[in-house]
C-alpha cells in the first residue's frame, strides 16, 4: 500500500513527506478516530492520503458535500469523545465558518482540529485571504508550522491543547508549507478511539440565547488560559543566528525559513523569535525578549496581525523598543514572501549589500517567451460543452450573453476561444449570480457548474432560482469526479472516499424533482447533438438544465490504457485546406500548426474526436 509507513511507521523512523502527508501522520499519532473534508488546493493531498490509509489505520474518513458539513461531522464526533480532524483550503473555512464560530462557544470534549491551508499568491485560489483572522474572530487558539516535521509534531500538540482548553484549534498552513517536502521523524501512534458516547448537556451544547451569552463569557476565560499556554509553549522559542545580534525578529510559519536563510545569506546576526503557537501571541515573552534589544522587526506574510498585536501591547506596557513591520520595514502586504524579498527588506533596513552570485546572474531570454498557462487537457469533455454552447449562441444570434462560471477546471474556459467565464465569486456562485444577471439585465445567461460543486453549494441556489422564476441555462459539467483537486469522489458517484460502494445521487433526477421542466443529458463529445440541446434549452422560459455527462479525460485515458484500447486522430495533410477551424474553435493542446496546416500531436491526442466533427472538409479521422 502506498503510504504504508504513515500507518505502521515506528517512533524514530523517518520518511520524506509532503507537509500535507505529515499532517496525516500527525493526526494518526494523535489517535484521531474521525476525519472529514471537502477537497481544495493546497489541502487536497491530506484527503488523498486519508483515502488510502484510513481503513488500515482504523480511522473513519469521508468527503462531505462541502466544508461546512465536514466541520459539522468532525465537531459532533469530537463532542462525542472521538478525536476529530477537519481540513480545507482557506476559502473553504468561509463556507464552514457559520458552524466554526459556534464550535468556539460550545467547545469540544475530545480534541478537535480545524486545518486551514492558506494560499498566499493565489496559486490555485480566488483570493489570498489571511485566515489567521479566523483565530481572532472565533477566539480560538492557532498553531502555524514551518516544515513537514513541525506539521507532524504540531498536530499532536494541537490535540493536547484542544482537550486541555476544550476548544477547537485552528491549524494554519500555507501553500509553501503544505507543499514542502522534507524528512520527518515519526513519534508513537496513540491508540485510535473510533467510537464514543454523546453525553447530553443542553446548557453546554445548545446555544439558544440564554445559553450562548454565558458561553461567550466562558470562551473568553478559555482564551486567557490559551494565552498562558502560549506563554509557556515550546512551540514559541528563540533561535539565534550569528553572534551578538542586538536585533530581534518575530516571525512564524513558512516565513521563518526565509528569515533564517536571508540572515545567513546577508551575514547578519539576529535573534529570531519563532512563533509556532501564534494565537494568542506570547506577548509577555515577546516584551521580555524585546527589552534587551535595539529594535524588533516583525516579518509576516499578508496582514500585519502579529505586528499590530505587539505594537498595541508595547504601547500599553510602555515598552520602548521600536517595532517595525509592514509600513516601516516595507514588508509587502500582498503575495507570499520568499528569501529574496526578505533579504531585500533586511539589506535595505540595515544598509548592507545584497548577496549576488559571484559570477553574475544569467540574463533572461531577450524577448517574450510563448506563455504556457494551464489549459483544458486534450480530450477534456468541457471543451465539447463550451464549443456547443458557443455554436448554439452563434446560430441563434444571441447578443452579449453572460457566462456565470464556477470553481473547477472548467473555469479555464475563460480563455479564448470559448471566453465562457465572465463572472465568478465562489463555490456554487454560478447559480446565484446567473439569477442576478437575469433579474438585472436583458442579457441571456449561461452558467456552468461541476458535478462536485453542484452538490457543494449549487443545490440550495438552484431551489432559490426555480422558486424565484429566474431564467438561465445551467450546465452541470458532470465529469464523474472532482477533477481539479485530483479526482476525489462526490455524491453523484458510486464509491465513497475510501473506495466503498455508495449510493449515487442522480443530478438529473434531483433537478426534475425540484421542478425543472427542461433537463437534458448530453454527451459533449457529440458536438451536433449537444449544440441542438443548447438551442432548445435557450428557448426555455425558466431554469433549463443541461447535464453534460462525460468522464474526465484523465480518468478515461487511464481506463483506456489499462484495457489496451487506444485510438488517436490524425489530419490528412492532402485534404486539410489550412482553414484552421479546428485550431480556432477547439483549441486543443494536441493540435498545432505546421506550415499553415493543422496537425495532431500523437503523444497528446486522446481520441475524443471533437476536432473531427468541426472540420469543414472532413480531413480529420481515426489514425489507422
Amino acid at each position, binding site marked *: 500500500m502506498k503510504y504504508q509507513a504513515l500507518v505502521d511507521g515506528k517512533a524514530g523512523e523517518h520518511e520524506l513527506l509532503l507537509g500535507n502527508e505529515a499532517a496525516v501522520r500527525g493526526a494518526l499519532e494523535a489517535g484521531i478516530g474521525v476525519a472529514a473534508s471537502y477537497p481544495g488546493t493546497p489541502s487536497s493531498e491530506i484527503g488523498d492520503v486519508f483515502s488510502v490509509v484510513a481503513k488500515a489505520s482504523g480511522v473513519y474518513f469521508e468527503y462531505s458535500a462541502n466544508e461546512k458539513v465536514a466541520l459539522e461531522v468532525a465537531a459532533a464526533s469530537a463532542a462525542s469523545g472521538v478525536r476529530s480532524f477537519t481540513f480545507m483550503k482557506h476559502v473553504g473555512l468561509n463556507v464552514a465558518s457559520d458552524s466554526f464560530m459556534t464550535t468556539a462557544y460550545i467547545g469540544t470534549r475530545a480534541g478537535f482540529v480545524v486545518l486551514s491551508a492558506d494560499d498566499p499568491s493565489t496559486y490555485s485560489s480566488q483570493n489570498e485571504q489571511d485566515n489567521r483572522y479566523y483565530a481572532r474572530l472565533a477566539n480560538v487558539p492557532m498553531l502555524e508550522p514551518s516544515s513537514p516535521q513541525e506539521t507532524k509534531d504540531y498536530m499532536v500538540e494541537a490535540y493536547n491543547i484542544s482537550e486541555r482548553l476544550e476548544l477547537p484549534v485552528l491549524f494554519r498552513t500555507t501553500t509553501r508549507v503544505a507543499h514542502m517536502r522534507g524528512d520527518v521523524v515519526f513519534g508513537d501512534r496513540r491508540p485510535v478511539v473510533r467510537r464514543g458516547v454523546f453525553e447530553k448537556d443542553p446548557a453546554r451544547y445548545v446555544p439558544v440565547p440564554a445559553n450562548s451569552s454565558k458561553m461567550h463569557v466562558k470562551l473568553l476565560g478559555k482564551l486567557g488560559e490559551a494565552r498562558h499556554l502560549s506563554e509557556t509553549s515550546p512551540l514559541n522559542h528563540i533561535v539565534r543566528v550569528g553572534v551578538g545580534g542586538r536585533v530581534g525578529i518575530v516571525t512564524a510559519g513558512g516565513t521563518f525559513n526565509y528569515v533564517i*536563510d536571508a540572515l545567513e545569506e546577508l551575514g547578519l546576526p539576529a535573534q529570531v523569535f519563532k512563533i509556532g503557537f501564534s494565537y494568542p501571541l506570547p506577548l509577555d515573552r515577546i516584551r521580555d525578549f524585546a527589552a534587551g534589544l535595539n529594535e524588533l522587526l516583525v516579518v509576516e506574510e499578508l496582514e500585519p496581525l502579529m505586528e499590530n498585536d505587539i505594537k498595541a501591547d508595547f504601547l500599553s506596557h510602555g515598552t520602548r523598543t521600536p517595532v517595525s513591520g509592514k509600513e516601516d520595514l516595507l514588508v509587502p502586504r500582498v503575495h507570499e514572501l520568499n528569501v529574496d524579498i526578505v533579504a531585500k527588506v533586511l539589506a535595505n533596513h540595515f544598509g548592507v549589500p545584497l548577496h549576488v*552570485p559571484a559570477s*553574475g546572474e544569467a540574463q533572461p531570454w531577450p524577448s517574450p517567451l*510563448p506563455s*504556457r498557462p494551464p*489549459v483544458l487537457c486534450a480530450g477534456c469533455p468541457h471543451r465539447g460543452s463550451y464549443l456547443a454552447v458557443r455554436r448554439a449562441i452563434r446560430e441563434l444570434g444571441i447578443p452579449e450573453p453572460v457566462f456565470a462560471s464556477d470553481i473547477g477546471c472548467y473555469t*479555464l474556459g475563460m480563455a479564448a*476561444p470559448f471566453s465562457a467565464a465572465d463572472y465568478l465569486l465562489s463555490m456554487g456562485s454560478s447559480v446565484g449570480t446567473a439569477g442576478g444577471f437575469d433579474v438585472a439585465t436583458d442579457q441571456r445567461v449561461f452558467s456552468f457548474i461541476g458535478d462536485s460543486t453542484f452538490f457543494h453549494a449549487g443545490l440550495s441556489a438552484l431551489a432559490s432560482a426555480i422558486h424565484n422564476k429566474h431564467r438561465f441555462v445551467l450546465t452541470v459539467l458532470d465529469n464523474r469526479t472532482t477533477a481539479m483537486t485530483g479526482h476525489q469522489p462526490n455524491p453523484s458517484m458510486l464509491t465513497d472516499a475510501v473506495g466503498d460502494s455508495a449510493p449515487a445521487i442522480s443530478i438529473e433526477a434531483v433537478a426534475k424533482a425540484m421542478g425543472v421542466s427542461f433537463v437534458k443529458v448530453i454527451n459533449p463529445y457529440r458536438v451536433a447533438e449537444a449544440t441542438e440541446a443548447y438551442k432548445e434549452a435557450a428557448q426555455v422560459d425558466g431554469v433549463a438544465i443541461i447535464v453534460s455527462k462525460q468522464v474526465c479525460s484523465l480518468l478515461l485515458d487511464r481506463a483506456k490504457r489499462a484495457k489496451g484500447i487506444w485510438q488517436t486522430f490524425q489530419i490528412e495533410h492532402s485534404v486539410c485546406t489550412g482553414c484552421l477551424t479546428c485550431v480556432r474553435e477547439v*483549441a486543443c493542446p494536441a493540435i498545432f500548426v505546421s506550415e499553415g496546416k493543422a496537425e495532431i500531436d500523437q503523444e497528446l491526442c486522446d481520441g475524443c474526436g471533437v476536432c473531427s466533427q468541426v472540420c469543414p472538409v472532413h480531413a480529420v479521422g481515426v489514425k489507422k
Partner: protein
Amino acid sequence: MSSLNVFFAGVGGQGIITGASIIARASIAAGVNAVMSEVHGMAQRGGSVVCELRLGDVHSPMIPEGEADLIIGFEPVETVRSLTRANHHTVVITEVRPIIPVSVSLGGTAYPAVEDLVAYLRLQVAAVYAVPAAAMAEEIGLPQTANVVLLGAAMGTGLIPLELGTIRDTLSRTVPAKALEANFRALQEGFESTRKV
C-alpha cells in the same frame, strides 16, 4: 550556508515531482538533508510547472533568484524561462523536444527554434547538456522514463553529491518491479550522456 540548489522546470504531467523526489530520497538515505517545494493543483493542467530541490543545510525549500547550481529542464522553452534562477556558474540540462503551448497555435508569441534556445543557454551559463531524453526513453521502450533519463544526466554532471548506486536503490524502492529494468537503463543512458570522460 552550504547547499546544492537544483531547479526543475517543465510542463504539468512530465514526472517532474517524481524525478526530484528520487534525488531527495536518495539524498536523505545518504545522510544529506533535502527539502523540496512542489506545485500542485491549478498549475498542473498543461501549464508551466517547477519544482525546487535544495540539498544541505537550508531552511527555505525555494531557491533564491540566480542561485540555482543545476537546472534540469524538461522542455526547451521552460528551461530558458528558468534562467531567472541561474548565474554564470549554473549547469543546465535540457530536453530538446518542444511541447508547443496552445497559445502558439492560437497566434500568440511564436515558439523559438530549439537550436536558438540552446545556443542562448550556452551564452548564459557555465555548461549546457542538451539531452534528447524523450527520444531515448522511447528507444528504451518506456516513454515515461524520460524523467529518469534526465536524472541520470544530472548525475553524470558530477554536481549532485550522491553515488549512482544510491539513486538505483531509491528507484528500486519506488518504481514498480516490472518497470524497474527500463528505469535502470534510462538512468544509465542519461548518466552516460553527460558524464565527463
